[in-house]
C-alpha cells in the first residue's frame, strides 16, 4: 500500500489506475495453497506409517496374502485414477487440473514398490538378484515421472537407478552409506554422474522435459564431486582426481551462469574449494610436519582464498556480463 501511495504521489500513475490497483490489492485473495498441501502431505505420511505399524503388529491374524492383495488393490486404484485423469503427453511441463493428482501418482508408486519388496521378502521370486528387485520399480518410476510429469517420482527413479549399481545417493546417505575407499565404487559414481549430466544436457537441447534437468544435475553434481573428492582424499591418484574435480567444477559453474541457477554455482565453488584447500594443506604437510610456520601459511592461504571467493561472488554480475 505504502508503495502505491508513493508512486501515485510521484505522478507515475493517474488517479483511475490508483483506485483500480488499490481495489485489487485490498481485495486480494488469501492463498492457503501451501498450507493445505503441507497438511495433506503430513496426513499421508501419518496414515501410511500408522497403517504400516498396524499391519506389522497384526500380521499373524491378517495373513500375508491378504496384505499383499490390499497393497495391490491400492496401487491398482491409484494408477486407475491417474490413467483416468491423465493429460496427453507433451515434452513441455504439464500441470494436471486435479490437485490430488501428484499425490495419487506418488502413493501408487510407493505402494507398488512396497508390494515388490514385500513379495520378495515373503516368497523371494528373484532369489539373490537384488538388482532386478530395484530395477523394476525404477523403470516404472521413470515411466511415471515422464508420463505424469512428476519430479518427486523422478528423484526416486534416479535414486533407484543408482541403487541398481549399488550406490545410495539420497541426500543424507550420499556420504554415510557409500564405501568410497573402494575404487570401483568411485568409478561407478563417476560414470553415473556423467551419464546423468549428459542426459540433462541432451534433454535441454532437445527440449524433452526441460524442467527435469535441475533434478538430474543436482544429483550429478553431488555424486560427481563427492566421488572426485573421495578419490582425492583416499586414493593415490591425487593429480588426476584434482583435475577431474576441477573439470566438474568448471562445467557446473558454466552451467550455473548460463542457467542463472545459483545453487549449482555455490555447490561447485564449495566442492572446488574443499579440494583445493585439501591439496594446499597436503602440500604444506609434505614440506614439514605441522609447525607454527606452516600453520600460519595455511591460515594466510584461507584468508586470501576466501577473500578471493567473496570478491568473485560480489562481482558476479560483472563477470556474467562479459
Amino acid at each position, binding site marked *: 500500500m505504502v508503495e502505491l501511495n508513493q508512486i501515485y504521489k510521484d505522478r507515475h500513475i493517474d488517479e483511475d489506475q490508483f483506485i483500480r490497483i488499490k481495489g485489487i490489492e485490498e481485495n486480494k485473495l488469501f492463498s492457503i495453497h501451501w498450507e493445505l498441501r503441507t497438511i495433506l502431505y503430513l496426513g499421508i505420511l501419518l496414515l501410511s506409517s500408522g497403517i504400516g505399524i498396524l499391519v506389522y503388529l497384526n500380521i499373524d491374524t491378517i495373513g500375508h496374502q491378504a496384505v499383499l492383495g490390499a497393497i495391490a488393490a491400492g496401487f491398482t486404484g491409484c494408477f486407475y485414477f491417474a490413467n483416468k485423469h491423465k493429460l496427453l503427453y507433451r515434452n513441455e511441463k504439464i500441470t494436471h487440473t486435479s490437485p490430488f493428482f501428484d499425490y495419487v501418482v*506418488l502413493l501408487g508408486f510407493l505402494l507398488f514398490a512396497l508390494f515388490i519388496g514385500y513379495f520378495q521378502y515373503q516368497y523371494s521370486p528373484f532369489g539373490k538378484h537384488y538388482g532386478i528387485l530395484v530395477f523394476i520399480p525404477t523403470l516404472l518410476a521413470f515411466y511415471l515421472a515422464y508420463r505424469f510429469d512428476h*519430479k518427486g517420482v523422478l528423484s526416486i527413479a534416479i535414486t533407484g537407478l543408482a541403487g541398481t549399481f549399488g550406490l545410495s545417493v539420497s541426500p543424507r546417505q550420499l556420504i554415510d552409506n557409500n564405501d568410497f575407499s573402494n575404487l570401483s565404487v568411485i568409478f561407478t559414481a563417476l560414470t553415473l554422474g556423467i551419464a546423468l549430466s549428459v542426459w540433462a544436457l541432451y534433454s535441454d537441447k532437445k527440449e524433452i522435459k526441460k524442467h527435469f534437468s535441475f533434478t538430474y544435475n543436482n544429483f550429478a553434481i553431488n555424486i560427481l564431486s563427492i566421488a572426485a573428492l573421495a578419490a582425492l582424499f583416499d586414493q593415490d591418484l591425487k593429480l588426476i582426481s584434482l583435475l577431474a574435480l576441477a573439470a566438474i567444477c568448471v562445467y557446473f559453474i558454466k552451467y550455473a551462469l548460463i542457467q542463472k541457477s545459483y545453487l549449482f554455482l555455490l555447490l561447485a565453488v564449495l566442492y572446488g574449494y574443499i579440494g583445493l584447500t585439501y591439496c594446499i594443506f597436503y602440500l604444506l604437510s609434505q614440506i614439514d610436519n605441522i609447525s607454527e610456520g606452516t600453520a600460519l601459511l595455511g591460515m594466510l592461504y584461507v584468508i586470501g582464498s576466501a577473500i578471493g571467493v567473496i570478491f568473485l561472488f560480489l562481482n558476479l554480475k560483472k563477470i556474467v556480463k562479459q
Partner: protein
Amino acid sequence: MKAYNSVTLFNTSIKRKAENWFAQKLISAEQREAILNSYSTYLYTPNIFVKIGLFLFTCFIILAASSIYFLMFASGFNSSGNGFYIFTSLFFSCACFAVLELLIKSKHVYNAGSDEALLYVGLLSLFICLFTIIGASGEDNALLLACLAMPFIAFAVIRYADRLITLALCFCVYTILFLFVLKFGDVAKMVMPFVLMFFSAMVYFQAKKIKSKTNLYYWRSCIGVIEYVTLLVFYASCNYYVIRESSVAFFNLQLATGQDIPLAFLFYILTASIPIIYIYSGLKQKDKTLLWSGLILLAASAITFKYYFSLGHPEISLTIAGILLIMVAYFAINYLKIPKHGITYEEEKDANSFLRSNAEALIILEGMRQESPTTSQDDFEFGGGKSGGAGSGGSY
C-alpha cells in the same frame, strides 16, 4: 541510526511491486520503465545461494584470522588469566563491527551474507566478553548478563534490522522478565503464566498495530519476528505440559500420583483452544503469521494431550490423525475450488514456485526413504558398511 539507506530499501520494494503490477497488466510498459528508472537502488542483495556462500566464506576468514591471532599470542593464554580473554573478545567484536561498517559503506551490501556473518560474530564476541567479566553461572548472574547484553542487542536491531538478532532480543527480554518475576518467590509460582501471557499479548497487539507504518518500514521484518515470538510464547506460557514441567523444575512442585497442578482445567482449555483461535483469526484477518503459528501449535497441543491421555496405541492414533488431516485438506481444497470469504486454494503467482517445487521433490525423497525398498542398502554387494571414508569436511 540506520546502517542501511532506508530510502533505497523502500525503492526496492516499490520496484518489486511495479513488476508485479506490470505482470498483472495494471500499468503500462512505459510506466513500468519510468518507475524502474526514477527510483534508485544500489544496495547489493544477492540470490539466497550466493548469500550462503558469502556467509560461509566470511566465517572462514574470521576463523582463520582468529587462528592467526591465537598462534601469535599463544603465550597470553595461560599467563594473564581472564584479562587476555576479555581483551581478545572485545578486540574481535570491535574489529568485526569496523569491517561490517566499512563493507556497508563501500560495497553497499544488504542482507548479503557477509554483513550478517560479521554482525553475528561481532555480537557473539561481545557476549563472550560480558560472560567472562561476570563469570560463574546462577540465576542472578544470568539476569545481570541479560540486562547488560540487552542494550547492545537492542542497538544492533535498531541499526541493522536483522531478524536473527531480533530473535535474540526477544529471548533476552523474556529471560529478564522470567528471572525478574522469579524473584518474587511464592507469588511468582501463581502469576508467572499470566505475566508472560499478558506481556506477550501487549507486545503482539502493539507490533501488529505499528507494522504497516511507513516510517517503520525499515524494521518490518523484525516486527514480523516479534509477532511470531509473542504468539508462540503466549501459547507456551499456558500450555499444560510447559506449566507442569516448569513448575517441577523451577518452583519445586511435588506432585503425588493422581494429583494435578492448580488450575489444571483452565490450562487444558487454553492448550486446546488457543491454536484454533489463532487459525480462525489468521484466516479471518488473512494473516499468515497467525495461520502458521496456529497450525504448528495445533500439532503441539495434539502431542501434549497425547502425552497425558495416551491410550497406549500409537499406531491407531497415527492412523486416525492421518485420516483426519487428509480429510481436512481434501474438503478444504474442494470447498475452496471457487474462492470463498476471500480465501483461495489457487497458488500465488509471484511466489518463488521453482524453488518450492524442487524442494518438495527432495522432501518426498527424504520422507519416503525408509518406506521404499529401492534404497535399502543392506542387500547390495558393494556399498553398505559405514566406513565414512570420504570425510568431507576433513580439510578444515
